[in-house]
């Protein structure tokens, strides 16, 4: 480097001591908070539990029973089949729609009200429509999960494209980039992080959609188990299912976040 000394001397990673302190904070305080939460649940369950609520230990006990009998596994498989289909279709359609309306503003002005409607419309009120359109089988459940996932993926993808600096588009144009090359070299890399965070949020939405549809529309799988717990006044069944779903959500979203982190790091955009 031959010019001014004011220029930074390369990139310095975070000092190791700080990384260690961050990790300690995360696990120590995070773990402590978790323990407090579980203790509070246990205490409230024991003092106020009954037909509608129960303690942590009874819930875990029931969870073990349900897993051993295979009932949890079967319910889990049934529910997640719809979740997987609904998520993949919703995410794919959402990314495509977001990319198109993010790039072609005229189309966006036409479609925006419908997108907003999809975001705010109460699903419960729309269930009759879905039943009449898709029956009460797998298709209906997939459709509901689709409508849970789709809007949030669209909104994030579109936001990603909006973050594209017009200078980059102009720059690519000045080197003669075609529309296809522009997408490949500028638009998609620029929107990538936002698309990934849309997919992460979409994962969470897919899981809640999965349970909502089974509670309100088609009583199968995990939703049916929750309903059974309520109907039989055995709250430990319901809470065992909720534990499983929450655990699944943490795992899946953590997985997507890891992929996200890997992609961002490869693109040189640290968190």
């Amino acid at each position, binding site marked *: *480097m031959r010019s001014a000394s004011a220029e930074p001397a390369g990139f310095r990673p975070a000092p190791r001591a700080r990384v260690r302190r961050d990790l300690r904070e995360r696990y120590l305080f995070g773990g402590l908070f978790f323990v407090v939460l579980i203790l509070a649940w246990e205490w409230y369950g024991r003092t106020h539990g009954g037909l509608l609520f129960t303690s942590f230990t009874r819930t875990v006990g029931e969870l073990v029973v349900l897993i051993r009998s295979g009932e949890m596994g079967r319910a889990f498989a049934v529910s997640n089949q719809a979740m997987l289909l609904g998520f993949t279709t919703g995410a794919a359609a959402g990314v495509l729609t977001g990319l198109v309306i993010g790039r072609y503003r005229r189309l966006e002005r036409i479609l925006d009200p419908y997108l907003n409607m999809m975001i705010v419309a109460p699903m419960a009120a729309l269930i009759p429509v879905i039943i009449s359109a898709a029956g009460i089988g797998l298709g209906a459940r997939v459709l509901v999960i689709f409508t849970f996932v789709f809007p949030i993926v669209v909104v994030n993808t579109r936001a990603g494209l909006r973050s594209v600096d017009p200078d980059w588009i102009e720059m*690519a144009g*000045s080197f*003669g980039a075609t529309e296809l090359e522009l997408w490949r070299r500028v638009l998609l890399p620029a929107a990538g992080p936002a698309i990934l965070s849309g997919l992460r949020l979409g994962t969470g939405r897919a899981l809640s959609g999965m349970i909502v549809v089974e509670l309100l529309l088609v009583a199968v799988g995990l939703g049916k188990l929750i309903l059974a717990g309520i109907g039989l006044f055995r709250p430990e069944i319901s809470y065992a299912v909720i534990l499983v779903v929450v655990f699944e959500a943490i795992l899946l979203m953590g997985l997507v976040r890891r992929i996200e982190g890997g992609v961002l790091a490869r693109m040189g955009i640290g968190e």
Partner: protein
Amino acid sequence: MNAAPPRLISIRGVSMVYGDAADGSVVRALDDFNLEIRSKEFIAFLGPSGCGKTTLLKIIGGLIAPTDGHVEIDGRPVTGPGDGRAIVFQNFALLPWATVLANITFGLELRGVGKEEREAEAHRLIRTFGLEGFAHSYPRQLSGGMQQRVGLARALAVNPEILLMDEPFSALDAQTRRMLQEELLALLDREPKTVVFVTHSMDEAVRLADRIVLMNPRPGSVKEIIEVPFGHPRPGQFEKDPRYIELIDDLWEALKEMVWDR
């Protein structure tokens, strides 16, 4: 009669109107702009903001089409961006997710130059601009001056005959700007090119250009074309030459008038 030097860029009656005549939101950015730019000449467009100098640069670059008139390069009308021209942008326009190396090779990659060849060219430019050791850094890890060196290297990588520079140093601090001006001049000394340089700095125009095109604002048109009385490379301490001081004075008087006129 001596043969005139080849006229490389001809700007013929270029007008640019933005907006919609229907709702009256019309902005006349350029009005019947005419100019001949010679090969290997350094032309500076100087004018107050809003005089359409950037618009004109983009028209020459083929990024936008004029409402009227046209630009010819070696007798062929410009219909779009293409080989032979490269733009250096005011805000660098570097891709933040790409390394210095990948940013520099951006244009070469689009032209289908093989990996080995384009990286060799990039490394040559990295050495030219003193960016050694930063090939795998990201733009955000560099200072503004180094970022614009990358922007320059990216433009030069495609070996353009015409370099179009849109206020390339205006986002930099004074010292860094001087440094880059010197580097640019040294570079043009080794590899002469036609340069069209947009600036609002009188000093920069005088320091760099062979001819300064002073532009009227709204709509932009040629007010005056001024020959800079210093050759390239500039004589040492030419800023102390009375002609330099006089030139800056004249430019200031002309610019002041325009700014007050608005």
